[in-house]
Every structure is written in structure tokens, then in C-alpha cells.
């Protein structure tokens, strides 16, 4: 294995404190905000039911908004009484370490950069940035090999999807030569 894994300093569990223990309340907050958003958005729109559509477009949305608010309250109560959702396990998931949010943030940045680059440079180049950026974020440090693989994957995928499968992916100025 030549891929060098990045070392993450292990954080002491004590540092997480009460707020960390109850970070699940953020989910309650999320449900609450979404619920308020649904209710307000629905009430701002006009349009009650008509004869041909007795229920109208608002009823279901309002019920859903109410359900979101109710679930927010129920989840808060559950968390405060000591309940907690179990984080999902998987083949490559090691739950004994604290979440490495830096990597997640870097991956999100790579996706945003890709979205910005596609209209400017086309898919093949943006794809290289995406693939290489992701391998770098995930801890690979064999830069040149990663770059070659990224270029190979990106160009091959572009030829396959754009050329053979008819999915329109802009080639960008670099691929302009190939028409």
C-alpha cells in the first residue's frame, strides 16, 4: 500500500462536554426550522381549495409542517431523556474516532469548486479537479499517481458519457480540438 494515510490527532473525549453530548438537539432545531419554513411559506401563498379540488394545495403542506414541528418537540424530549440515534456503521467506517469534519469540509469545497469550473473549463478538466481534490482530501499523498489516475478517469468518463452514451457533458476549451 503506497497510499499514505493522513494522521488525525486523536481528540480527548472529555473535551466534547455537554454540548457535544447533546449535539443531536441540532437535528431537533433543523426539524423545527424546516417546519416553520413549510408553515410560513404555505400561509404566505394564497389559494384555498376550490370545487374541483376541495383540499387545495395548502392542506397537505400545513399538516406536514405541523408534523415537522411536533417531531422536533418529540425528538428534543427524547434526547433530553437520554435517547440517542445510533450512528451508521459500515465497511470503511470506524466509529471509535471522532468525526473528522476537516476532511468533510474539504470534500464540500472540492464539489463547490467543480460546480464553478464546469462552465468555465468543461467536464474533463473539472473532473480532474474533482477526482484529484477528493483523493487529496481523503488523505492520499501520492500526488503524481493520483493526478494521472484522475486524468484517466475523467477523460475516459467524458468520452464514455458524452461520446458513446449521449449524455451532454461540455468538453470545454481544452477538448475543443476534438470537436
Amino acid at each position: 500500500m503506497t497510499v499514505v494515510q493522513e494522521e488525525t490527532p486523536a481528540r480527548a473525549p472529555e473535551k466534547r462536554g455537554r454540548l457535544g453530548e447533546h449535539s443531536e438537539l441540532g437535528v431537533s432545531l433543523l426539524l423545527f426550522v424546516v417546519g416553520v419554513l413549510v408553515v410560513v411559506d404555505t400561509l404566505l401563498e394564497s389559494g384555498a381549495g376550490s370545487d374541483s379540488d376541495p383540499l387545495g394545495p395548502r392542506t397537505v403542506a400545513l399538516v406536514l409542517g405541523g408534523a415537522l414541528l411536533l417531531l422536533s418537540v418529540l425528538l428534543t424530549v427524547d434526547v433530553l431523556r437520554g435517547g440517542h440515534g445510533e450512528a451508521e456503521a459500515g465497511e470503511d467506517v470506524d466509529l471509535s474516532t471522532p468525526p473528522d469534519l476537516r476532511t468533510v469540509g474539504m470534500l464540500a469545497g472540492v464539489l463547490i469548486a467543480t460546480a464553478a469550473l464546469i462552465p468555465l473549463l468543461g467536464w474533463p478538466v473539472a473532473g480532474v479537479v474533482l477526482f484529484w481534490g477528493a483523493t487529496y482530501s481523503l488523505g492520499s499523498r501520492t500526488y503524481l499517481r493520483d493526478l494521472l489516475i484522475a486524468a484517466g478517469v475523467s477523460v475516459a468518463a467524458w468520452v464514455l458519457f458524452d461520446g458513446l452514451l449521449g449524455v451532454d457533458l461540455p468538453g470545454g476549451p481544452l477538448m475543443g480540438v476534438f470537436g
Partner: protein
Amino acid sequence: MLDSLTHLMGGFGAALTPANLLFAAIGVLLGTAIGVLPGIGPAMAVALLLPVTYAFDPTGAFIMFAGIYFGAMFGGSTTSILLNTPGESASVMAALEGNPMAKSGRGAQALATAAIGHFVGGLLGVIGLVLLAPLVASVAVDIGAPDYFAVMVLAFVAVTSVLGSSRIRGFAALAIGLTIGLVGLDPLSGQPRLTFGVPQLADGIDVVIVAVGLFAVGEALWVAAHLRRGQQEVIPVGRPWLSRGDVKRAWKPWLRGPFIGFPFGSIPAGGAEIPTFLSYVTERRLSTHRDEFGSGAIEGVAGPESAASASSAGTLSTMLTLGLPTTAIAAVMLAAFQQFGIQPGPLLFQTEPDLVWTLIASLFVGLVLLLVLNLPLAPAWAKLLRIPRPYLYAGILFFACIGAYAVSGQAVDLLVLLGIGAVGFVMRRYGLPVLPAIIGVILGPDAELQLRRALQIADGDVTTLVSTPVAVTVYTVIALLLLFPLVRKVLPARGTPPVDRDREGTPV
């Protein structure tokens, strides 16, 4: 009955054309390869491969999907046998006996048992589909909007209540999915909902982007946050084979599995998780080698694997005949159907008989291909487990982005994809199940439409919702599902139920 056979023969005629055979073979190979890759389950496999099928006609696309489905299910059990860290709940039971077998040098037998189990289970399951699906479809043709609405509510309640440890979190996931489904112009009145004046949101958030975001991006971000440092041990394996003694012990479990798997696959109870568990318990009880269970009993691989495969066929039956997805992968396939402008449901057997019967025939073809290709290829599949993780997850993100971009050719969709992926990340972090969310996104708009249609027909009379025997029955089932835990709480505790005792020692 005879009618079905005639149709099926016609289906075989279409499925055995060189092009369709090729699609089936590609589907099985892609499905197995992607299913073997750690971190990619069947639902993500289908979601990632959606753009590949845009160029094909619907028949070719669905033949491929069927191959991917069976292939990915089998690939998942290969991973859990050789790595002992099951990625999907369906392959937990395979790991339980399969991994000890592999560790004691019987990996080849474990893989062969799994492969043949998948073949037998799939075969019996698809036969069940052929016998039952046209029957169900012909009965279901007469059911109206109130019944449909009731059945969809049942699907919502069942996927949130039957599985998972917390109902609140299940319903929270469902509500998030329903909210995503609400975005866009209301199809009946044309009124914008949750679009916030953004024109791109008027058409709603495309189901493909939601599926790829929740399954692929959400999973990749989640794994990135907890990436296992250092390589796991992969048990080397040769070409799968079975001795006469092995077959003697495995054939009965192979045949029993489907009878547990098919019914559970066809109801909204989470697909293969429950039937594989029940099959495992059954085989342990019936086995004459009960002492070997836990240290590599072949019956414990044969039964659950066969049940898992048959449950896929049951899932397909329900999706084709009622348009009702009971698993995440069926939900993604339903989305794929809708991309092609086809609405699965009882009418499908009348409007698209050629498509349906070619698809069913290609299920048989796919199963044969699965067996023929996977036995010799097993050592190659095992090599896939060694792929460096940065490349694996970079690849997942790469193809997720192509899939999202291909929907409408807008780079902005990548940001929507990231947003949905972030939701998927939070859900995994705090134990909100993904299945109710995706079912909510896909069935939610449809359920609202049926509800409003029902009230439209009845001039706003709410009692129309409980005016048919089907609807009343379904609501009774829903009430029982919802009340069951409350009843159990009230009843005096009678010690640990046997189910929980069996759960102990499950390496999840």
C-alpha cells in the same frame, strides 16, 4: 395462468436477443463489481448507474437494472464473507457464518454456497413473481384513489415502524423526505411551494439528484469523516466449489429460504433484513449441526442468502404490480421508471406487457448469468476489496456528480447535490434511517395526488377515504402497527424474548 406463460415465452424471445443479453451481462457484472466494493450498496449502485441508461430504450435499461439488483445483492455478501464487516443489513447474516467459514479455510465453499443460494432463491422468487404478479395486478386494477392513498400511508408507516430502533427518528426522516418532495409547483393548482422564488426549484428537486445525494454523496461524506485508518484483512480465496457433503447440508436451506424471503420482500418491511434473520434462526433450529453455528455452519449461509435473493423478487413484484417501493433500491428503480415516463402499477401489465414480460424473462437470464459468471470470477472480485479508499470514494463522488449534472445539464445542480448530501450525512450521524426519506420523496407527491383526487371525486366528503373494504383493512393494519409497541409496553414483562437472545453476538 396460461396467458402468463405465453407472455413469458414472448418475453424470453425478446430477452434472448444479443443486445438484451449483453445488457443483462453488463448489469450483472457491474452490479456485482459495485456491490463488492465496500461502502456501495445496491441502492447506491442503481442510483450511480442511472445516467448510464439514459441512452438506452426502457427495456434495455430495466434489463440492466434487474441484473444490477441481483448482482449487487450477491456482491454485498461476498464482501461480508471475506471482510466480516457487512455494508448492508441484508448481508449481516451471511457474515455471521460465512466469515468463520472463510477464516477456517472454507471461503471457497462459503462463496459457492452464497452464489448457489442466490441462484436458487432468485429462481424460486421470480417464479413466485410470475405466478402472483399478474393476479395481484388484475385485482389491483379495480382499486381506486382512496385505496391507493391508504396503501401509500401503510408504506410510510411500515418503513418507519418495522425497522430501526427509534420511531421518532424514522418519522423525522420520512418528514424530511416528504418536505423535499413538496418542493416545486403543485401539479393540480400550479401554485409554487417551497420554491422561494428560485426558478430552478419550480420543477421540484429531481428524484435522481435526491437519490444520488442521499446515497452516494451522503455516504461518501460520512465515510470520509470516519475513514478507517489502515487496511482491513481480506481473506484470500480460490475458485468456489462444494463437496457432496456440503451440498447435502445446504440444499434444504436453499429451498426453504425463498418461502421466508419472498413474502417479506413484497411487503414494506425493509426488504431482506428481517427474512435473512428469520431464515438464519430457522436453519439453526432445524440443523443437525447446531453446535457448528457461530463457527461456520454452511446452513447459516445457504438459507439467508437464498432468502435475500428471493426477497428481491418479492420487492420487484410489489413495485411492478402496485407501483409501491418497499426497499430503497426499489424506490430508486421506481424513480428510473418515472424518468422514462412509465408509471409502474396494476395498469403496467396492460399498457406495457412487452416491457414487463421481457423484464421478468431477463430476471431468469440474469440469475443464470450471475451463477455462471460469479463462480469463476470470485477471486477477481475479492481483489476489488483492496482498492485504496481515497480512489474508491473519489470515484463515488465523481460519478455522483456526473449523474446529477446529466439530469438537466446545470452545474448548479451540483450544489443541490451537495446540500442533499449534507442532509444524508447528518441523517447517518444521528441515526435517522435513509429508507423512509427516499420513500417519502418518491411516494409523497403521489400520495397527495391520490388523496386530493379521492376527495375531488367525493366532492370533499372525507368519509370517502374509509368507504371501501380495502381501505378499511389497510387502516386497521396501520393502526395495529402503530399501537403494537404501546401494547407491548403495557403488558407485563416476560423476560427477554427469544428474538433478542438470538441477536446477541451479531457482529454489526
